[in-house]
């Protein structure tokens, strides 16, 4: 067990020769108006055993840079129009595809954000690893198999022999990314490009994968180019950082210097926008008057059919006996990792999935309502989804989208609805003369503002924000969070804020519930949960968050490939129900 802090030191004192030298790299896309540069005049070097992070928001050109180095730019529109990519003495930018193929995987490898799409779904993990090895080295099948097994062991996968015979869909997200890393490192490449390697993973799994990458780098001396939007990951992993914006390098510095003394205004803004744990603004305690929403003993189970007769043989226990109240004007956060049931609760509250137990919004119970009653109920609770582009009908004008709830509930005439839509647009920081545009004409952050405006149209008592800022760039995220806070003060609406991002939750919430496997394991005010976490799972979640501070000393932790138990149980069986105990002032913690 090696303390992680040690790994953050530059690996060797001696300055080694650069492995990869990028000089004046320019990548352009062919458009009708001629060539448009996506990356301009980018130069950097990577040395052996070093981690260089390329950080930037979406559209900054960081992923295009990595694809250009790999020679994987989508032909024919996007291509390298200038500069060199020198790997040793070879210029990869001018290398023909036939020779590039030999370099790829062997001398320079890449791992992608979404491991599921990078693995062939119809080949076993073992076959893919063996093929990757044999494509580059002339070794026998059995020798390649031995190498593959060794690679799987190196990435600390449990039961490597069994994994060899499994398919990608049989593995969890974290295990898949380990397999990708094993595949990338099996041939001991000189350079590894990791493009958002942990963005799709849960925070505890992210922790394991980052630790793994760092350990492997120390053993093999691989140079890593880490492409990420997450400044926390940068702070923990990188020796040097390049900050990119609009295809240009804004700043290059050693990680410690960048965080301590950012030179450029853009870097300062970027760092300021990063949500930090412990930076939440202390807010006045909200008066504990009648709750806006009350969930009592809510259970959601999905049947899995099987057998010859197609009867339900197993149940997915998505939500198990969850109870909580949300007070007027407060932000109640539900946190947990994927599959913990937090989004299912949101769907149950808005009536998209059937549930047992009792859900009450503004004094009205959801159970046993007729069609008219349901419609009235839905006026009180609105939802803002994760992906605003998907949640807005692309064929409707924004004005109509915002007025849609008013039209559905028959409130006011067309002119009044339009005036209200214009007013709401202004409230969320958009201009009323954009009413006749379509969603695709807006940026991601603006689209999420449109969704928020739509949710506000009916003056609901509760708005559910299901991962509503997760897909946004940090600077946009910070502005949307500020908007939510301002709207809450103005409209007195309560938020149910669902997120996997502990730092964001810490910044916005009044009270927090931590979910694990469909049950709440800890519930309390923000100060209670973050200041004095009691449940081991809560502590693990908080500890796993990457801290955007290179000087942060991480506690040594056992490094294991933890597996979340399955929420699937046979009929009649079920998970053990946790009992919540009050440890003082309403701070509830699961016993045992």
């Amino acid at each position, binding site marked *: 067990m090696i303390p992680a802090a040690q790994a953050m030191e530059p690996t060797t004192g001696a300055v080694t020769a650069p492995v990869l030298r990028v000089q004046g790299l320019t990548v352009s896309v062919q458009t*009708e108006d001629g060539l448009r540069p996506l990356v301009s005049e980018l130069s950097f070097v990577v040395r052996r055993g070093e981690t260089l992070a390329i950080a930037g928001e979406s*559209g900054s050109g960081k992923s295009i840079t990595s694809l250009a180095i790999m020679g994987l730019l989508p032909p024919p529109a996007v291509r390298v129009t200038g500069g060199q990519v020198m790997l040793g003495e070879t210029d990869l930018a001018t290398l023909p595809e036939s020779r590039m193929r030999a370099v790829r995987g062997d001398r320079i490898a890449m791992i992608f954000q979404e491991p599921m799409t990078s693995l062939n779904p119809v080949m076993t993990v073992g076959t893919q690893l063996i093929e990757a090895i044999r494509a580059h080295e002339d070794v026998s099948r059995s020798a390649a198999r031995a190498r593959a097994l060794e690679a799987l062991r190196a990435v600390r996968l449990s039961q490597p022999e069994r994994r060899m015979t499994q398919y990608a869909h049989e593995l969890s997200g974290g295990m898949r990314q380990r397999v990708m890393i094993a595949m990338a490192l099996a041939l001991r490449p000189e350079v590894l490009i990791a493009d958002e390697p942990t963005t799709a993973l849960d925070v505890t799994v992210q922790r394991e994968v980052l630790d793994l990458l760092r350990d492997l780098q120390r053993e093999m001396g691989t140079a890593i180019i880490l492409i990420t939007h997450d400044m926390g990951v940068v702070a923990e992993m990188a020796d040097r950082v390049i900050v990119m914006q609009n295809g240009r390098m804004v700043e290059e510095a050693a990680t410690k210097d960048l965080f301590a003394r950012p030179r450029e205004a853009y870097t300062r803004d970027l760092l300021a926008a990063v949500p930090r744990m412990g930076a939440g603004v202390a807010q006045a305690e909200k008066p504990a008057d009648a709750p806006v929403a009350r969930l009592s003993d809510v259970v959601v189970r999905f049947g899995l059919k099987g057998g010859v007769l197609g009867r339900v043989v197993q149940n997915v226990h998505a939500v198990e006996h969850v109870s909580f109240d949300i007070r007027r004007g407060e932000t109640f956060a539900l946190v947990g990792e994927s599959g913990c049931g937090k989004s299912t609760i949101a769907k149950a509250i*808005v*009536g*998209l999935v059937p549930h047992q137990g009792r859900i009450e919004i503004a004094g009205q119970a959801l159970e046993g309502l007729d*069609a008219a009653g*349901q*419609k009235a109920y*839905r*006026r009180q*609770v*609105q*939802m803002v*989804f994760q*992906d605003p582009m*998907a*949640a*807005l*009908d*692309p*064929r409707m*004008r924004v004005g109509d989208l915002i007025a*849609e*709830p008013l039209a*559905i*509930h028959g409130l006011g005439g067309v002119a009044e609805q339009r005036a209200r839509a214009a007013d709401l647009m202004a409230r969320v920081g958009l201009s009323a003369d*954009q009413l*006749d*545009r*379509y969603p*695709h*004409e*807006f*940026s991601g952050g*603006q689209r999420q503002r449109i*969704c928020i405006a*739509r949710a506000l149209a*009916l003056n609901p008592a509760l708005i559910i924000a299901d991962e509503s800022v997760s897909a946004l760039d940090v600077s946009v995220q910070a502005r949307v969070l500020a908007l939510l806070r301002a709207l809450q003060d103005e409209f007195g609406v309560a938020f149910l804020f669902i997120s996997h991002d502990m730092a964001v939750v810490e910044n916005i919430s009044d009270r927090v519930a931590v979910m694990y496997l469909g049950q709440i394991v800890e519930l309390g005010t923000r100060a209670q949960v973050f200041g004095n976490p009691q449940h081991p799972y809560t502590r693990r979640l908080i500890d796993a968050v990457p801290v955007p501070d290179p000087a942060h000393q991480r506690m040594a932790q056992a490094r294991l490939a933890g597996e979340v138990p399955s929420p699937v149980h046979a009929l009649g069986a079920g998970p053990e129900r946790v009992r919540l105990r009050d440890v003082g002032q309403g701070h509830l913690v699961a016993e045992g």
Partner: protein
Amino acid sequence: MGSATKAERIRRPKGAMARLLQRRMAVFGLVLIAIVVAGAVLAPWIAPFSPDEQHFDGLTIEGAPLPPDARFIMGTDLLGRDLFSRVLYGARTSLVIGIVANGVALLIGTLVGITAGYFRGWLGAVLMRFTDLMMAFPALLLAICLAAIFQPSLWIVAMVIALVNWVQTARVIYTETTSLATRDFIAAERTLGAGTGRILFRHILPHLVPTIIVWGTLGISTTVLLEATLSFLGVGVQPPTPSWGNIIFENQTYFQSAPWLVFIPGAVIILLALAFNLVGDALRDVLDPTQRGRG
């Protein structure tokens, strides 16, 4: 903000028709359709002869059809009738089949597909199994049976064709609806409290328009040819009433010696299908707001 400046350059929306007329190929298609419609409507005034009149001088001495000349501009058919007049009158039949029969088929297919795709469950299962059954059953045999039950007339033939031709549309619309129904914006619509009718017709149907247009334009040539087949088998439009399809079938034995008899009506069918295709393509782009401001 890049998207904002791009949006600024987009001209303010005009009517769909005005934008359609900006497209050269669409205008070309519209003109072709207009010519065919005008020809069909004005046939009694344009046609130089009655379509059924057998000219004594309409055949060679050996009894073979005449090639196009100054008098019979498209030549004559195997019975010595003027082909141009027959093509003009045939346009009436073929337009009814291509537009009415095809339109009814599209309507049935869309309704079945959207209902089955949105509701799923037992209703969807019943509808789709029925669709599968229709697909497995030879369409021609079914058409013959139906046509034999009813007295063949133009409208009955159109209905028969509609009843066998909705199946593919239903299948495709079903698949698209199932995927649309799981999209977030439909879930969002449901959480807003929208009723089923509103979701189906305001939010799902507009997304199906491109598919419906493509199937509609494809269906024109299929239905016109199906009518021809039925006519050939004697259960379609009854002779001597001309339709483009039965002109081809009547004369196909002369294909080698008098190719214009097959070639001309064939070319007209292709042109009409092409015209609808061009207009359909343009319509699809014009009606799609996400295409605005792009090529």
